C-alpha cells in the first residue's frame, strides 16, 4: 500500500470507493496496516475492531457492486473516542469503573456515520471521562504524540487526534468540553472542530459537563472536517439541547475567498498572557493574521474582557455538573463493583477504586461547589460570569466574522510535566475554555511547526451555528500553507517504530 493511500483525504477516498477505483476493503486494509505499525507505540486505541471494520467495508463493496448509492463517507475509516457509545463494543471512557461495559445502543453520531457509510475502526484512548488535557489520565494507557513520542498528544481526545495525525485513520471523533478536541488537534497538527453547543446531538456521548460537552471531528483537511460535521450535525429528538439551526455545510462554500470577511484578534488577551504564550505561537498568530489580511480580510481588534475569568468559571461549572453526571457509576446496574459489607461500603469502595485521581478531584470540587452554603458563592456566581463571557463573544462576533486566537499557550508538552500539578494543567486551557463557555464554535487548524518540529495550531472562533465560516477561513489558509500535509516521521510510509 502506498503512502498516498493513507495520506489521501476522506473526500478522495469516498469518491474512489463510490466510483469503484478502490474497494472499501482495500482502503480499510491499508489503514489497519498503518495502525498495526504505529498504534501500539502511540497507544492510540483502547479497542480496535479490524474484523468488524472489514465486514462493514465488504458490505459497502457489495452494495456498490449492486449499484446501490453510497453515503458521503463511503469506505472511510473513522476512529471513535471511547466516551461515545458504540453498540456491543467496549466503551470505558478510559475508566476502570467501566472496564467491561458495552453499551446496548449506538450514539446518534454513530448512527449518522453508519448511514454515511463510514467504517468504524476502533475506540480511541482518552483522559478518564474526558477530564484532562494530556490523555495521561486514562486508566489504561498513556497515548503518545506522533510528532514526538516523549510528548503528550493533548487531551482529553488525545487518542483521536494522534490516530489521525499518524494516518491510522483519516478521520476521528472526539468530544470537547473545555478544549478536548481543539487542544489535541493543535498538539498533533490536525484539524479539530468543536461545533456550536447544540449543533451535534449528545445522545450516546457519555456526559462529563452537560452544558459544555460537544462531539466534534478530527481530520487532516478543512474539507474533510466539514464533511464529517455535515454528516453528524442537526436536530435529534433524543437530545433536547440539539438544534435544527445546525445544517450541513456545502463544501463549495469553503472555497470562497476570505476577501470581505472581518477577522477579530483579541490583542488584550495575548498581551495579558505575556511570557506564558510561547513566542512560536505568538509568531504563528501574527503571521496567520497577516496572511488573512493579504488575502483581503479586514483585521480588527476585539475585546473579550471577561475571558481571563474563564478558567475559574469553568473549573466550577464543569466539575459541578460532572459530580452529578458521574453519580450513576455506583456498581449497581453496570460497571465494576467492589467492596463488601453494606450498601454504603459498596458505593464508596466501587467509586473510590473505580475513579482515578483527576476524576476524584473534580467530583470533590464539584460536590463542594454545589453543596449547601457554597452554591451562591461558587456555582451561581460562575454561571453569572459565564453570562458575561458569552456576551463578550457575541458582541465581538457582532463586529467580525471570526476570531483568530491561539488554541494553547505552548506546543505539546513532555509527558509527566504537568501530571502532578493540576492547576498548571488547568491553566493550559486558557485559550480554549472561553469559547466552550460561550457555546460558540471553535476550530483548531494546523498553522505551522516550531523550530523543533512540533506542530502549532491556531484557533478560529465563529458565530453560533456558523461553522462554515471558520472552516472557510481555515480552508483559505490551508490553500496557501497546508501544514497538515506533513506527516510525522514515525507515521511516514516505510518508517519503523521510533
Amino acid at each position, binding site marked *: 500500500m502506498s503512502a498516498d493511500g493513507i495520506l489521501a483525504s476522506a473526500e478522495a477516498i469516498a469518491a474512489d470507493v463510490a466510483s469503484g477505483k478502490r474497494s472499501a476493503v482495500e482502503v480499510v486494509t491499508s489503514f489497519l496496516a498503518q495502525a498495526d505499525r504505529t498504534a501500539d507505540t502511540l497507544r492510540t486505541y483502547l479497542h480496535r475492531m479490524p474484523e468488524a471494520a472489514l465486514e462493514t467495508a465488504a458490505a459497502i463493496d457489495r452494495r456498490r457492486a449492486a449499484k446501490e448509492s453510497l453515503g458521503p463517507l463511503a469506505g472511510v475509516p473513522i476512529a471513535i473516542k471511547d466516551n461515545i457509545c458504540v453498540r456491543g463494543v467496549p466503551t470505558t471512557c478510559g475508566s476502570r469503573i467501566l472496564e467491561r461495559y458495552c453499551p446496548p445502543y449506538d450514539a446518534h453520531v454513530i448512527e449518522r456515520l453508519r448511514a454515511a457509510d463510514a467504517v468504524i475502526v476502533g475506540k480511541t484512548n482518552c483522559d478518564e471521562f474526558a477530564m484532562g488535557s494530556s490523555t495521561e489520565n486514562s486508566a489504561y494507557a498513556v497515548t503518545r504524540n506522533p510528532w514526538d513520542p516523549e510528548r503528550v498528544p493533548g487531551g482529553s481526545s488525545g487518542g483521536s487526534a494522534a490516530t489521525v495525525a499518524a494516518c491510522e485513520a483519516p478521520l476521528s471523533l472526539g468530544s470537547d468540553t473545555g478544549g478536548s478536541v481543539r487542544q489535541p488537534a493543535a498538539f498533533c497538527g490536525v484539524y479539530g472542530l468543536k461545533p456550536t453547543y447544540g449543533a451535534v446531538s449528545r445522545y450516546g456521548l457519555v456526559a462529563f459537563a452537560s452544558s459544555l460537552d460537544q462531539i466534534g471531528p478530527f481530520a487532516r483537511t478543512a474539507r474533510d472536517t466539514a464533511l464529517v460535521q455535515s454528516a453528524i450535525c442537526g436536530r435529534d429528538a433524543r437530545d433536547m439541547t440539539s438544534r435544527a439551526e445546525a445544517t450541513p455545510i456545502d463544501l463549495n462554500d469553503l472555497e470562497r475567498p476570505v476577501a470581505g470577511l472581518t477577522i477579530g484578534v483579541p490583542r488584550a488577551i495575548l498581551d495579558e498572557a505575556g511570557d506564558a504564550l510561547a513566542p512560536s505561537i505568538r509568531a504563528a498568530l501574527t503571521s496567520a493574521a497577516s496572511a488573512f489580511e493579504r488575502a483581503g480580510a479586514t483585521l480588527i481588534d476585539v475585546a473579550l474582557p471577561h475571558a481571563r475569568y474563564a478558567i475559574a468559571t469553568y473549573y466550577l461549572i464543569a466539575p459541578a455538573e460532572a459530580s452529578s453526571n458521574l453519580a450513576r457509576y455506583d456498581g449497581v446496574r453496570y460497571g465494576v463493583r467492589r467492596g463488601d459489607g453494606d450498601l454504603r461500603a459498596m458505593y464508596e469502595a466501587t467509586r473510590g477504586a473505580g475513579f482515578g485521581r483527576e476524576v476524584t478531584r473534580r467530583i470533590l470540587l464539584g460536590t463542594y461547589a454545589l453543596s449547601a452554603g457554597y*452554591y451562591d458563592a461558587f456555582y451561581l456566581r460562575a454561571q453569572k460570569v459565564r453570562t458575561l463571557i458569552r456576551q463578550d463573544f457575541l458582541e465581538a462576533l457582532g463586529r467580525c466574522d471570526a476570531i483568530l486566537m491561539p488554541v494553547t499557550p505552548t506546543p505539546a508538552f513532555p509527558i509527566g510535566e504537568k501530571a502532578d500539578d493540576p492547576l498548571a494543567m488547568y491553566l493550559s486551557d486558557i485559550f480554549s475554555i472561553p469559547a466552550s463557555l460561550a457555546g460558540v464554535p471553535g476550530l483548531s487548524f494546523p498553522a505551522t511547526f516550531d523550530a523543533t518540529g512540533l506542530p502549532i495550531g491556531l484557533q478560529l472562533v465563529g458565530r453560533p451555528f456558523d461553522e462554515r465560516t471558520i472552516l472557510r477561513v481555515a480552508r483559505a489558509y490551508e490553500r496557501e500553507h497546508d501544514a497538515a500535509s506533513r506527516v510525522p516521521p514515525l507515521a511516514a510510509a516505510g518508517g519503523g517504530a521510533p
Partner: protein
Amino acid sequence: MTKSGAAGNAARDRYEAVIGLEVHAQLKTKTKIFCACSTSFGASANTQVCPLCLGLPGVLPVLNGRAVEFAVMTGLAVGATIHPRSVFARKNYFYPDLPKGYQISQYDRPLCEGGGVAIRTAEGPKVIGLVRIHLEEDAGKSLHPEGREGVSTTRVDLNRAGVPLIEIVSEPELRTGEEAYQYLTKLKQILIYLDVCDGNMEEGSLRCDANVSVRPRGQAEFGTKTEIKNLNSFRYVEKAIAYEIDRQIALLESGGRVVQETLLWDSARGVAETMRSKEEAHDYRYFPEPDLLPLDLDAAWIERLRASLPELPDALRARLVRAHGIPDYDAEVLTETRALAAYYEETAARSGHPKLASNWIMTEVNAVRNKIGGSIETFPIRADRLGDLVGMVAAGRVSGKIGKQLFEKMLTDPEGPEALVQKHGLLPIDDDAALRALAREVLAANPGPTAEFRAGKEKTFAYLVGQAMKQSRGRAHPEKLQAALRAVLAEESS
C-alpha cells in the same frame, strides 16, 4: 384514639397543631416522564426499562408533553398560578433505586404556585392553601429482605423509575388529622375528575408524607416539626397525625423538646417511630438540569387547557343542587365521582323524580357497591333501567317493597323493570275479587287467629294482614287488601 392518648384533654386544648402535607400523585400517562417506556402497573421486574431509566451512560431525558399537560391541568383546577417558565433541577443523592444518582425534579422555579383546596370541617368550610405543584420523576423500587436469616441483599426493580409524578405541597394550614383526611379525599377527587391520576394508594399512585408540629395556642411561631412517612391510606394519615400531635403535646407537657426527625408510621401497631437508618444531613446539591431546557409554556395553550377542563366536584355539586333541587348532602354523595354524578343525572331524568332517584342511589345502589366493591361504571344496573324503576315506584305502579325485589332481580338480570314485573308476575293485586279470594284463603289457613279476632282481639288483624301480604309475595295493594280482609271477615261472621 386521642381520647386515650398520652396527653390529657386539658393539655390538648392548650395547643394547636400545624400540619402540612406533601402529596405525590402519579400522572396517568402511557409513558414515563423522560423516556418512552410504559408506565403500566404490575409488569414483571425490570421489563419496562430502557437505557434512560436504567441510568446508562450517554442517554438524555426527553420531556413527555402529556405529563406537562396533566400537571398544568391540576394547577388550573386548584387555582394555582401556572408559571410560563419553570425549570427542572437535579436533586442529588445516592440510593439503589435512583439510577442516575439524582432525581430530576423542580426546585426554585416550579410549574405551579399557590391555589387551594376547599374542604368541609367541623367548623365549616375552609380552604387549604397550596405552596406549589411541581413535576418530577419517580424512583424505582427496592425490595428489602424482611429480617430473613442469612439474607443480606436488596433487590431493585426499575419499572417505576421515571414514572411522572406531581408533588403537591400544602401550606401548613391543616389543624387536625380529620382535616388532613378531608383534604386528601378532596384532592384525590379533583385528580380523578381531571383524569390525570387514578388515585390508587395500594398501587402507590397517590402517596403522602405529613409534616406535623404543635405550638401553644396563640403563639405565632411554629414549633419544631417532624415528618411522617409510610402512610399507606388516608385513614393512616389521619391516625398517624393524631398520634403524633398527641405525642408532641405530651412530650412538651413533660418538659421535653421535639426533635426534628423523620418518623415511619407502623400501621399494625399504630405508632410512628424514628427511622432506624442514620440519616446524614441532607445536602441535595440542587442545580438546574442541563440536559433539559427550561419549560416554556405558551399562554394561549394554557388558556385552551383551562377552557377544556372538565367540570370539577364543587361546581358539579352546586349544579346538581340547582338543577335537581336535591339537598347539598345528597349532591356531595352523588359527586363522589364524575361517573356517579352522571349516573344520577340520567336516573333522575328518566324517573322524573330527582329526590327519589337520589335516595335510591344513596341507599340501594351504594349499599350494593359497598358490598361488592367497584365503581359505578361497573354497576350491573344501567341508569336508564334504574330510572324506570324509580319512576314505577314513584307512580305507585309497584310498591316500594316490590321495587326492592325488582332491584335485586335487576342486579343479575339485564332486562328492564317492566319486563321483569311481567316475567315474575309481580304486578300489584288490586282487583277486589282477587283480594277477597286471597283473604278467604288466608282466613281458612289461619283458623286460630281468625277466631281470636272474631273474639274481639283487634290486634290479630295486623297479623292476618301480614299473612295475606306474605301470601301475595308483597304484591297486594295494602289498603285494598285491608279493606278486602275486613269485608270477608264481616261477611263470614254475618
